[in-house]
């Protein structure tokens, strides 16, 4: 019964994703129906292939990646309110990208990837270092410390922007979005996605057992410190990649895993696929809204996702008996 429920969920989500992907390639400044892939002029095909398709793929990959990394983070921190954007990881990547841009680095996909990994990693190490006690991770410190570090980093980024007269660049990073995604970026996203999936697949048992407290997990043959490190590396990698391509997109990792475990409470390893599918669908929906609601201008993706996430978090704190600490 349980197993068939999972299958049904997966199939429904997959259909939803397919539908949204079709809608996403069709919608935009101008509407191209699904048939224009075959019949239309060379120009139309060119637009579909070089503009619409990379954008759709990037949204799918980033959504799936962020949702999965949110799930990992919630598992690691034993807390339903963990998310890379709350914990300062996104802000760190943003600051590094900004500094790199100011130092005259060419922000191609390779440079922006290592820069944002560096920034995200440093920020995460700081937050983790603040939250580590001798007994293990202190959850309250992790969340609130992360929030404060995050806003501190954002302030510094803005100060740098002012001092160097580069507020325009700050603005671009702040806004985010998939409008200018190119095929090489999609390839890089794909690589990171494969690494993430392989990592989770190889260590799914250990990662699932992290939800237990440390001594129990140790009794079951898991080394908590090492597993936590692995999960952190995966989280930082995927959050950094997402920032490098799409800007500061928050809260996807917060709501999506919560919803999936609400529909289908189960172990981490079984919920990986539905979480990724739902994350991708969510990201596609937001992206479609961003490019169609205010045509021909784009709405800022980061603001849309913050609004959705903020509402979700408020509702969550209101209704469910969420254990926050």
């Amino acid at each position, binding site marked *: 019964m349980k197993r068939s429920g999972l299958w049904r969920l997966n199939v429904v989500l997959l259909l939803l994703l397919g539908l949204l992907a079709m809608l996403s390639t069709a919608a935009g400044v101008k509407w191209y129906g699904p048939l224009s892939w075959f019949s239309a002029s060379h120009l139309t095909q060119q637009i579909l292939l070089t503009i619409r398709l990379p954008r759709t793929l990037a949204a799918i990959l980033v959504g799936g990646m962020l949702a999965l990394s949110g799930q990992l983070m919630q598992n690691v921190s034993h807390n339903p309110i963990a998310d890379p954007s709350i914990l300062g990881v996104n802000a760190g990547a943003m600051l590094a990208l900004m500094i790199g841009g100011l130092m005259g680095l060419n922000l191609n996909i390779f440079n922006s990837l290592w820069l944002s990994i560096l920034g995200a990693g440093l920020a995460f190490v700081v937050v983790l270092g603040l939250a580590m006690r001798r007994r293990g991770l202190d959850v309250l410190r992790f969340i609130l410390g992360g929030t404060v570090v995050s806003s501190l980093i954002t302030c510094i980024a803005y100060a740098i922007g002012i001092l160097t007269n580069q507020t325009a660049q700050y603005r671009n990073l702040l806004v985010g979005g998939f409008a200018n995604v190119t095929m090489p970026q999609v390839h890089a996203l794909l690589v990171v996605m494969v690494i993430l999936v392989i990592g989770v697949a190889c260590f799914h048992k250990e990662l699932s057992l992290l939800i237990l407290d440390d001594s129990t997990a140790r009794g079951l043959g898991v080394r908590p410190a090492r597993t936590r490190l692995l999960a952190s590396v995966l989280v930082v990698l995927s959050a950094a990649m997402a920032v490098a391509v799409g800007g500061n997109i928050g809260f996807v990792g917060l709501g999506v895993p919560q919803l999936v475990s609400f529909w289908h409470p189960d172990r981490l390893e079984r919920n990986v696929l539905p979480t990724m599918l739902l994350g991708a669908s969510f990201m596609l929906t937001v992206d479609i809204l961003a490019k169609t609601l205010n045509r021909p201008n784009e709405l800022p993706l980061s*603001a849309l*996702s913050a609004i959705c996430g903020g509402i979700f978090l408020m509702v969550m704190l209101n209704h469910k008996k969420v254990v926050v600490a």
Partner: protein
Amino acid sequence: MKTFTRYLIVIALALLATFACLMFGDIHLSLSQVLNALFGLGDHVSTLVIWQMRLPYVFAALICGSALAVSGLLLQQLTQNPLVDSSILGVNAGASLGAVLLIALSARYKALSVQTWLPLAAILGAGCALVLVQQTNAQHDRLRLLLRGVALTALLNGVILMLQLNMNSFDFERVLTWLTGSFWNVDGKFLAGYGLAAVVLLLLVWWFRADFNMLNLGDDMAQAAGVNINRTKRLLMSLAIALAAVAVAVGGAIALIGLMSPNIAKRLVGSQFTTRFAMSILVGCTLMLASNTVANNLFLPATLPVGLVVAVITMPYFLMLLFQKSEV
């Protein structure tokens, strides 16, 4: 006696910060030049610099510092939670949203002047935000209250960003400086109006100090002592909102001063409301003046928004405070 000396020390620090604010800048003035100019004996240049360029900022810092500090004190008294202030609960973000909305609308409808409607917009926004944060039984759960504040701030900032991007780049910059906190208007009339409002509100708080102090005992004890709890709390809340709105109108969304000042004051003079009230004001003003001096001088000739400097100073303190609390 100990309290008295501590007051003296903080007053001395506040004076020091004031004079630092008056002396340093693009044009450096000596102490005697400043004093001469203040008493009307100075030369032309120093009089102009002091009266036209420096003093307005000092007044703006005093208004913001005292209003934010007392607003934070009231909110901490209301929730009995030392980790709370108007910026954490999203009240500042609410007031900013009101103001940004007004700026966006005034670009379209010329009849809406930002100057006249600003206080109303800020107060409405701040009130809505506080109602949203407070609406349920979250008061008993301190951490949950903080997290609701975080969520609300993220949500409101998202809305602000949406509005911002539909503006022209001039308004965009204006809103951005607002959101990081800076004294955007130092016109004499403007400051006088808000200064008057701040003084009236502070006097009101002083008038009701006995009732507010009773809340320290807990609701039941305070009720037994003859305090009308619901009325007092409503009053406390409206005064806190009004003070936060005044501060946001003058200096934009300045973070965490309201958290830090009452806590430092508590450390210096204890949790008695009356003594803590005066001390919070002093500490808040000192912090704002010092931040203003740093903001204007650290990277000459560029100036930073005051709010940024305040954030960089106060956030580590918040972390420290947070960690002490969770130790217990």
